[in-house]
C-alpha cells in the first residue's frame, strides 16, 4: 500500500480476471445499451418540438409550468413580503417597457368598471380609489426579461379595495383568507381598449403589497406608466402589472392573459 494513499483512505479500485471473450461481450452489451439510451433524449426533444402549442407553449412544457404553479402555491405565503428600500434608492425615471393596451388615448370619461358576481357592473372614479388608505412601496420591480429596478409606487391596497366593495367572493361578503371556498380563484383585469389583459391568482391579489397604484415617486403616474391607476403586484413579474385599468372582474377559471397567450407561464410568481 502506498502510505500517502493510506492516509487519504482512498480505496483501490476492484479488479477481476476475466476471459478475453467475456470482456468483448461485456463491451458490446454496454455499447448496445448506450446507443439505445442515447435515442431517448432525441426522442424526448422531438416529441416536445412536435407537440401542438397550448397558449403559445409546447403542450408538455405548458403542463410542467402548470405543475410548477401548483408547487409554488404550496409554499406561497402572504407573510413573505418583497424586500423594500428607502425612498432615495428609487430611480428618478422608472423604465417604460411596453405600450400594449395604452396606445389608444385615455378615454376622457374614464371610470373603473368593477364586475360583481350576480350583480350589475358598477363604475368608480379616482376619488373613490384615493379615499382608501394610501400605501407607499419602494421595491425592486422585476421584469420577465431579467432586469430589475428599484421603483417608488403609491396607491391603495387591492385587498382594501376588495374589502371595501365586498369583491372577490361568491357570497358577496368581504373576502377573507379564512374562508377560501368563498373566494373566486382569480382576479382579471383589462385596459379600457382591451389591448392588454391579465389574470392573477387570488392569493397574490390579496398580498398586502399588491397595490392599485396611482403615484410614482410621489407624483400622479403619467400615461406611459398607466395613468390614472395601474396594478403593482410585486409577487409577480412586470408582465402582470397591468397599466391603465379599465375593468376588474373575478372568476373561478383563469381569465385570459396577454403574455400567456404568447407562450409565457401563467403564474409567473416570484
Amino acid at each position, binding site marked *: 500500500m502506498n502510505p500517502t494513499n493510506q492516509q487519504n483512505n482512498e480505496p483501490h479500485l476492484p479488479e477481476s480476471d476475466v476471459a478475453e471473450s467475456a470482456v468483448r461481450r461485456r463491451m458490446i452489451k454496454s455499447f448496445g445499451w448506450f446507443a439505445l439510451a442515447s435515442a431517448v433524449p432525441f426522442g424526448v426533444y422531438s416529441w416536445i418540438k412536435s407537440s401542438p402549442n397550448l397558449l403559445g407553449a409546447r403542450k408538455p412544457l*405548458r403542463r410542467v409550468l402548470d405543475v410548477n404553479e401548483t408547487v409554488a402555491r404550496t409554499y406561497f405565503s402572504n407573510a413573505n413580503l418583497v424586500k423594500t428600500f428607502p425612498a432615495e434608492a428609487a430611480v428618478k425615471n422608472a423604465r417604460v417597457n411596453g405600450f400594449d393596451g395604452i396606445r389608444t388615448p385615455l378615454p376622457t370619461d374614464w371610470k373603473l368598471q368593477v364586475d360583481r358576481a350576480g350583480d350589475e357592473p358598477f363604475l368608480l372614479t379616482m376619488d373613490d380609489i384615493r379615499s382608501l388608505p394610501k400605501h407607499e412601496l419602494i421595491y425592486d420591480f422585476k421584469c420577465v426579461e431579467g432586469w430589475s429596478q428599484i421603483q417608488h409606487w403609491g396607491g391603495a391596497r387591492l385587498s382594501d379595495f376588495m374589502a371595501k366593495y365586498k369583491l372577490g367572493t361568491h357570497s358577496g361578503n368581504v373576502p377573507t383568507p379564512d374562508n377560501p371556498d368563498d373566494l373566486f380563484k382569480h382576479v382579471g383585469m383589462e385596459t379600457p381598449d382591451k389591448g392588454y389583459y391579465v389574470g392573477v391568482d387570488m392569493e397574490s391579489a390579496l398580498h398586502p403589497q399588491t397595490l392599485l397604484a396611482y403615484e410614482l415617486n410621489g407624483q400622479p403616474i403619467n400615461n406611459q406608466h398607466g395613468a390614472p391607476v395601474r396594478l403593482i403586484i*410585486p409577487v409577480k413579474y412586470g408582465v402582470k402589472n397591468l397599466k391603465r385599468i379599465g375593468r376588474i372582474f373575478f372568476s373561478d377559471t383563469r381569465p385570459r392573459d396577454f403574455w400567456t397567450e404568447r407562450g409565457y407561464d401563467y403564474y409567473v410568481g416570484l
Partner: protein
Amino acid sequence: MKRIVHKHPLAIRWFHWINFPVLSIMIWSGMLIYWAYDPYKITIGDWTLVSFFPDWFYKALGWSRRLAEGMAWHFAFMWLFLLNGLLYIGYTFVSGEWRHLVPDRKAFREAIEVTLYDLGLRKTQPPFIKYNGAQKIAYFSIMLMGIGSALTGYAIYKPTQFYWLTALMGGYEMARLLHFALTIGFVLFFLIHIAQVIRAGWHNFQSMITGFEELKPNAPNRPNPTAAADRPTPTPPLKNGGGAIDPALS
C-alpha cells in the same frame, strides 16, 4: 485471461450521461432567457475584453427573441437537473465513491504537477488511484458548481417566497450574475473535459460506458501506485454466469 479494473459504478455512469443532455438543455434554454437582458461583459477600463454576447453570436445560433420558449424549457428541465444532481451527490456519499473524488490536502500540489506533465514540462505524473489531483479538483468543483447553479437559480426564480435564499446569494442581481458565471464555468469545463478525454484515449473513454478498463501495467499514461503483488485479490466475476462483470446500463 485479462485483468480488468472496475472504474465507474453503473449509477455514476447513468448520472453522468443523463446530465449531459439535461445540462445541454439547461444551458441552451438559459441562453434564450439571457438574450432578453444581456448586460454582462468583462472590461479593462473602457475597453471591452469580452461581451456576453455580441448580436452576431445570437443571430448565428438563432437564439434571438425566444424568451418565452427558453423559460418554458428551463423551468421544465430544471427538475431533471435537480433530481439527477441530488441522486448523484447522494450516491457519491452513501457509496463511498466520494473517497475517489473529494480533493485532499496534497491534491493541489498534485494538480500542479499534473498540469506541468500535461504541458510537457514534467516527465512523470504523480501516482493516483482513480483520479489525479487535477481531476479531483475539477470533478469536485463541478459538483459544487451544480449546487451553486441550483441555489442561485432558485434565488432568481422565487426571490420573494425564498427571500432568505436570494439574500444568501448576494441579492437578486448578484444571484443572476453568479448563475450566469457558473454557466460559463460549465461550458469551459466541458471544453477542457472533451480535450482531456480525447487526450486520454479510447480506453479511458469507454470506461465511462462499460464501467471497466483493461489493466495495462506498463501503460505510460496510467501509472500504478502499487506493485501488482500489493493489489487486492481479484474479485470473482460478479454476475450470474456468462462471465458478465458489471451490468452496464441494464
